[in-house]
């Protein structure tokens, strides 16, 4: 069959379609793979692959980022077009509630020399929207199989798989954009009937949240309520579950281990850490089994859980793109458009997916601005949890100072970059998907994927970070660096020179770095400056690698220089201004 087979000879099946038509949902139904599915265009910016079963065959299925046409207008669409050259068969996922617009890509695909089968997805939504499609007739006109499906519930997926062998390449003659649209108009008039129906409650709400005044009010309420919920769940989990677990069950074990190791020595130092006045302190002892487990599990995990729970609701309900439209005005002055808020919000969870999501932006200029702003001014949830844990006990107003400073840096930096950088950023032009009621099971599944990726990817780094600190201390490297950097640390930021160890570890993990400020006995002012500087000065290694790949070495170097300069300036200003 196809010429492009991988070493094992498996065929490549591509899932292609417009953004936000449910490709990822169908993908996960076909392959059983766990992928992130949300209700906004551009959820998938990287291609995903998995295996499915057709009889005895095990073809590779590739979830291609959404594209409106084969003439790419963004990086994600470029990826889609490139993938097409390597495929053996296309499952064209079409949004049945939006047939006309979706058929353009379908026609373009039918002109290629590749077999196509069409899945009329979101079929369950057509009835209550008063849309009636003659599937039989559509199939005759397109001369490829057309199967109604619903990716979310799995309806029609079996029929889709059964009919894959019938996929064919009609090799239609190419047409100009205008001719294609004329042809689509004719097809639509023949296969689709619309009946009038009343607006549903969700549709009324839909209009409200994109009206200027109401959208601001709704936005403020949703943001406030979301933060309240994140704190409520986060603190609830810490006080109700993790604190009792660590204090009640784990601490006695650690005391036994400490006694067994003789209360001192290298092994004791690495595993249990330092005893503070003869006691183990989970926050500042800095052993692998004490602080190393307590920080990621006892302090961070509860907030990661509650953040991603709420983010899942934002994503699946369809509120996220509306929020993006609301912020468009402000973002426009920062050289971005409203949709750039999506990588920023994802960055609040973890900067890595945030950096990846900058791919939904069109050009190099706005990718640079968005990525730099995120890396400088958007602390990830792990870092936020640590700051809240460490600074919160000195008083809520100090948390306010840190986050207000970061927000100010975000806005000012954005305005400056927009002035300095040559060129103009494109304006917003996006689809706002309809509201959907988030499905509990889907939200929980996405949450569990994100939690397990935190445990798999972050936990080892935290442990390595803490091990690294202990080794550096043992080798006296820290003292040397502390002397080297003491001018900046002491004279500009007003921090003790030992804080260099936190900056050093911050390259690896920002949360551990914040935690390292704990044992230094800092004043509240020093703590505020330390946390702010740590958030700004450089991305952690995982984010750095993704940014390097996304921006290229030259832009990454510029971006990093901006971060260091900003950290020096902002930390210095805080040191001058703050009086407590």
């Amino acid at each position, binding site marked *: 069959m196809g010429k492009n087979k991988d070493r094992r000879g498996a065929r490549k099946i591509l899932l292609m379609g417009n953004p936000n038509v449910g490709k990822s949902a169908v993908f996960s139904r076909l392959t059983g793979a766990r992928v992130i599915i949300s209700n906004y265009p551009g959820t998938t910016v990287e291609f995903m692959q998995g295996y499915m079963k057709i009889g005895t065959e095990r073809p590779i299925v590739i979830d291609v980022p959404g594209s409106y046409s084969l003439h790419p207008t963004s990086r994600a669409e470029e990826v889609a077009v490139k993938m097409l050259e390597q495929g053996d068969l296309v499952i064209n996922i079409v949004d049945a509630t939006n047939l006309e*617009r979706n058929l353009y890509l379908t026609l373009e695909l039918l002109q290629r020399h590749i077999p196509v089968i069409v899945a009329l997805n979101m079929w369950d939504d057509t009835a209550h929207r008063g849309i009636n499609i003659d599937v039989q007739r559509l199939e005759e006109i397109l001369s490829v199989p057309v199967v109604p499906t619903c990716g979310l519930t799995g309806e029609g997926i079996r029929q889709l798989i059964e009919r894959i062998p019938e996929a064919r390449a009609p090799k239609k003659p190419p047409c100009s954009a205008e001719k294609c649209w004329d042809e689509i108009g004719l097809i639509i008039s023949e296969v689709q009937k619309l009946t009038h129906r009343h607006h549903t409650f969700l549709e009324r709400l839909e209009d409200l949240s994109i009206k200027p005044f109401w959208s601001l009010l709704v936005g403020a309420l949703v943001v406030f309520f979301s933060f309240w919920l994140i704190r409520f769940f986060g603190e609830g989990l810490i006080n109700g579950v993790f604190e009792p677990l660590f204090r009640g069950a784990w601490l006695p074990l650690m005391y036994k281990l400490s006694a067994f190791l003789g209360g001192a020595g290298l092994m004791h130092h690495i595993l249990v850490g330092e005893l503070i006045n003869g006691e183990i302190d989970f926050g500042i002892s800095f052993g692998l089994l004490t602080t190393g487990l307590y920080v990621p599990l006892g302090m961070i995990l509860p907030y990661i859980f509650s953040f991603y729970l709420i983010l899942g609701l934002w994503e699946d309900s369809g509120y996220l793109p509306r929020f993006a439209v609301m912020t468009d005005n402000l973002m*426009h002055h920062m050289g971005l458009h409203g949709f750039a808020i999506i990588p920023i919000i994802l960055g609040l969870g973890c900067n890595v997916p945030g950096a990846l999501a900058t791919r939904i932006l069109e050009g190099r200029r706005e990718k640079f601005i968005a990525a730099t702003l995120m890396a400088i001014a958007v602390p990830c949830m792990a870092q936020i949890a640590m700051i809240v844990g460490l600074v919160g006990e000195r008083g809520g107003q100090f948390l306010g100072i840190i986050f207000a400073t970061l927000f100010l840096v975000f806005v000012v930096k954005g305005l400056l970059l927009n002035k300095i950088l040559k060129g103009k950023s494109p304006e917003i032009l996006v689809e*706002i998907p309809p509201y959907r009621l988030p499905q509990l099971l889907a939200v929980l599944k996405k949450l569990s994927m994100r939690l397990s990726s935190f445990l798999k990817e972050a936990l080892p780094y935290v442990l390595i970070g803490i091990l690294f600190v202990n080794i550096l201390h043992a080798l006296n490297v820290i003292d040397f660096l502390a002397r080297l950097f003491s001018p900046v640390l002491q004279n500009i930021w007003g921090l003790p020179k030992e804080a260099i160890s936190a900056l050093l570890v911050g390259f690896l993990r920002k949360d551990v770095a914040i935690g390292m400020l704990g044992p230094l006995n800092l004043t509240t002012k020093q703590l505020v400056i330390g946390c702010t500087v740590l958030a700004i000065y450089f991305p952690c290694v995982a984010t750095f690698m993704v940014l390097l790949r996304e921006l290229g070495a030259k832009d990454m170097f510029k971006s990093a220089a901006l971060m260091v300069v900003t950290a020096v300036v902002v930390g210095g200003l805080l040191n001058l201004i703050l009086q407590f």
Partner: protein
Amino acid sequence: MLVDLTEMKAGESGTVVSLEGGRGLVLRLQNLGIRPGKRITKVSAHFWRGPITVRVGGPNLALGFGVASKVMVEVDRKRHG
């Protein structure tokens, strides 16, 4: 009456007459369903030359102010008022 999208009032409907932008912009607008001959309803306009939201057939679309000024619409206006 022929106006561009920014000059329409929220709630007004009309028929798209032409797209004035460059080739790339016209393609993107077409892909999202904004094409000559299509019925269009303006849903809202945000403050200070902010984005404009419209409905064309299916879902809502958001367009920046500059983009919206490139979409020419023959608007249905009632005689009175």
